[in-house]
């Protein structure tokens, strides 16, 4: 049974179909890239997978259960979407990481989890004390990545997750994600990235979306 199945999905903005009859599956252990030109609705696809928006047609099935049958907060703690521009409430990085642990669905990370990841990313404890509104774009993405990973999701949906990182930080983030995948064979990841190089590094296969998706399967 695939972890995620998208079946005949279509999404319209006003009168225009961004993509239509889009079908693909993601299985445990897979690394899947989503590609398509800017404005082709890659973010909308990831948002629809966790039910932030509704599809205009077709359906999303997670772990064998259609989205409409899920209590979505449960689904979203299992399938975690990280938007391209992460948002934070005013406060420190530590507070930003702690806030989601207060939700009813949250599973706290094991002791030492955060410290170990921070070290691997080359960030000291001062990073946790920094105020989120003073972070650079790259630091915000790192904080968002840690915030999303700490509660143990099974599938990560990364929307240009390293777009604001410098090459070194990108390497660090990629290896963080590679280790995360290696830790548990049931995990999987879906990436969107503008960089063809990155996609070829971090994904095994690609799903292409856009108007072409319609003609391809029509």
């Amino acid at each position, binding site marked *: 049974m695939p972890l995620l199945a998208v079946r005949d999905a279509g999404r319209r903005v006003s009168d225009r179909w961004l993509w239509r009859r889009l079908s693909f599956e993601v299985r445990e252990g897979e690394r899947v890239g989503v590609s398509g030109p800017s404005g082709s609705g890659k973010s909308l696809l990831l948002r629809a997978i966790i039910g932030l928006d509704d599809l205009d047609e077709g359906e999303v099935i997670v772990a064998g259960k259609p989205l409409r049958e899920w209590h979505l907060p449960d689904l979203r703690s299992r399938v975690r979407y990280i938007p391209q521009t992460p948002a934070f409430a005013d406060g420190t990085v530590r507070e930003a990481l702690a806030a989601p642990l207060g939700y009813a669905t949250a599973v706290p990370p094991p002791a030492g989890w955060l410290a170990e990841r921070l070290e691997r990313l080359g960030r000291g404890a001062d990073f946790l004390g920094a105020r989120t509104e003073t972070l650079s774009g790259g630091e915000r993405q790192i904080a968002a990545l840690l915030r*999303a990973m700490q509660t143990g999701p099974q599938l990560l949906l990364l929307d240009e997750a390293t777009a604001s990182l410098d090459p070194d930080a990108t390497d660090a983030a990629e290896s963080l994600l590679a280790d995360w995948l290696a830790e548990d064979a049931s995990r999987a990841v879906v990436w969107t990235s503008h960089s063809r190089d990155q996609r070829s590094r971090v994904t095994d296969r690609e799903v292409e979306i856009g108007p072409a998706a319609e003609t391809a399967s029509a």
Partner: protein
Amino acid sequence: MGAIEIGYGQLALGALLLAINIGLSIALRLGLARDLVIGAARMTVQLLLIGLVLEWVFATENPAIIVCIAVLMAALAGRAGVKRTARRYPGIWWNALVVILGASFLVTGVSVLGVIRVDPWFDPQYLIPLHGMLLGNALNGISLGLDRFMEGCAKDRALIETRLALGATRWEAARPVATEALRTGMIPVVNSMMIMGLVSLPGMMTGQILAGADPAQAVRYQVLIMFMIASCVALATGGVVALAYRALFSPRHQLRSEKLRGA
């Protein structure tokens, strides 16, 4: 002992005070002279008309008419409350109407029946002015609470959706915005309670004293009405924020910000 009667001639004399405003506006080119005249004329006509209506209402002893008037006042207040918001969502008018009717009738009812024990309960001398004062304040609470909540949903959309994406339920995601909206709606009434008697002498109390009431009695009425106002504002603001929350957050834990439109 009653107040000295004011005739229409004396009102005209009082209107001369506005010459100060108009003179100032003309001298400094504030461009307010026209609005001042229109505003003053509107106020005078509206109040004279409501005076006639009240005379008629006070003469009727039909509870149905008095309740109808109370409902009409509440509907006008609900409409005015929404009119001042910068954004709208479908159903906002109904939400404001239901909430202001519920909150004002509940608080007026409890006070008139349970606290003041007016007999008969529909005596318009009590019911109409008390109800009116509640509505005036509830309207502000609704306006501020709704405006703040909708503004928060629009401005903090990314943050709210981040919370949802991190596994928050719709209430966990909306709570910071909702509590802030409720707080904003209740600030004016808390402020006015804080300074009452020190900075401001409330209009109702002043009016009662002018009409010859015992000041201690007037003060007790004022204290009671402030308690009524505070509870009514809390009910109305809380109610309207709760309904706006239900309109803008779907049971499937989605923020439906596309429902928001500029006014």
